């Protein structure tokens, strides 16, 4: 997948071009307000860029579609549908036969450790379970690209850790192309093959970092020297960019 954007009126993004090869887990980190989420919205086809375009498999994709599934941070599930119906939502739209839908949702419910909650409404679920169901719903559709906008941002630290491990296992299994936006640097390193560090607004890509940690990723790697080195590198860049953001705010005042 590749996309390019140009100038916008409130210039959120500027001359961004990034290409995510098939099956790669790409993370985007940057100071708050740098336009990471905008970038993802553009990729999903939910925000129209003033310039530039999005290509999936070399074909332009300006409208949102089932080929790019998205997971948001909040309001992720439809409260009036059971967990199972939520997961089957995309399949229902595609008019996949009921038995096939059932099979697919049952598989994902088990995989996402939601057994016993298939017929529950989202109100009965914890924050972590809700996001697991939301990821299951996106995966049920078998999209080419999975777009994730700080999906674990609203979860507590312990739950977030568990979710990251689950997600990296899932990636190992499905090898989807993932574009993952986060402000959590360790999360980006733990999950990603590559990390795009964005600049202060108008957001550009400042640095691209390869994460050469072996796969499958495990929790123990977080303590490794290699991990620490990457973290310090990213922290340094983001700190610099955040300072710039503060300075430009002061300059405007």
């Amino acid at each position, binding site marked *: 997948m590749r996309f390019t954007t140009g100038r916008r009126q409130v210039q959120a993004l500027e001359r961004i071009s990034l290409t995510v090869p098939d099956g790669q887990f790409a993370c985007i980190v940057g100071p708050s307000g740098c336009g990471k989420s905008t970038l993802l919205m553009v990729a999903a086809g939910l925000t129209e860029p003033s310039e530039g375009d999005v290509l999936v498999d070399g074909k332009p994709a300006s409208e949102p579609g089932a080929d790019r599934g998205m997971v948001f941070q909040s309001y992720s599930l*439809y409260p*009036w549908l059971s967990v199972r119906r939520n997961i089957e939502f995309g399949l229902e739209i595609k008019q996949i036969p009921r038995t096939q839908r059932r099979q697919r949702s049952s598989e994902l419910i088990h995989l996402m450790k939601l057994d016993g909650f298939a017929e529950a*409404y989202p*109100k009965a679920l914890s924050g972590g379970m809700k996001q697991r169901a939301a990821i299951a719903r996106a995966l049920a559709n078998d*999209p080419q690209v999975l777009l994730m906008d700080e999906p674990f941002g609203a979860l507590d630290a312990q739950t977030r850790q568990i979710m990251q491990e689950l997600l990296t296992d899932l990636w190992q299994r499905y090898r989807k192309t993932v574009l993952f936006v986060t402000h959590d640097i360790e999360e980006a390193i733990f999950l990603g093959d590559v990390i795009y560090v964005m600049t202060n607004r108008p957001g550009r890509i400042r640095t691209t970092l390869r994460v050469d940690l072996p796969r499958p990723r495990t929790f123990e790697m977080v303590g490794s020297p290699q991990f620490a080195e990457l973290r310090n590198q990213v922290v340094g860049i983001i700190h610099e960019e955040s300072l710039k953001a503060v300075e430009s705010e002061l300059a405007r005042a």
Partner: protein
Amino acid sequence: MSERVPATRSVTASPATARRRRRSFVSTYLTPKRGIPRRTIAILGVVGFVVIIAVWTVVAILTYNKDVPAEVQLVPRPDVVVVAWIDMVAHLGFLADVGWSTFRIVAGFALAALIAVPLGLLMGSFEIVRAFFQPPINAIRYMPASAFIPLLILLQGLGETEKLTVIWIGVFFQLVLMVMDIAHRVPTEMLNVAYTLGASRWTVFRKVFLPATFPEVVDALRITMGWAWTYLIVAELVAAQAGIGNFILIAQRYFRADRIIAAIITIGVLGLITDFLFATYHRWAFPYVEKVHG
């Protein structure tokens, strides 16, 4: 943590005595937002009614005028009102009046809701619709429905159409704006997720947007239904052949405060019943809604 007494005392208390320690009255009942025992809630609910009836009885006794019969007292005793209500139902055809009023409410309210709900949903989702309808509706909303009654009598006469129109005016302009707000509050993420799952605009509207608004729309209907009663009674007081308002007007001519009070209480009970029906429907139709009040 917050339920403990100051630390100085809890340090000296042994675990055994701590368990038996009773909270003071003030900390049990007068801590903002802290729940109180269920039994107390139930008792207070009953006591509220008892106090009203007691005060009423005392006033009735104090103002008793022994030169006139019990039923034409300015402040009749509660038991006199009960007798009056039985008499109204048994001999004055009061239930027919109740029937007429109920019919008008249901019909007028249904006509208002039938247009207000779809229009409100459209206004909340399409800016083009809102830009056109909101300014006039906002202005008309502040014109009291009851002020239209003389005009409506000129235009429509004294028939049922006039009554229904009064209710329609009273309900429609409020309801449409409430529904608009509900529609407007549907989180964009909910719709966006559906698009990325391959839904078309129409599918998003039908399968996400509409269901997302339903529970709150029923809440809005329940609230505006209460207002409909006010407008109806005003319309019936001004001019009607039948109905609870009309019954009250006639009772006033005969100085029958007992009948007036009985009729007013009847309206209150009807309101409670409607509310109960709406609440029951809500619980049945939307079991997935997270309760705000425990």
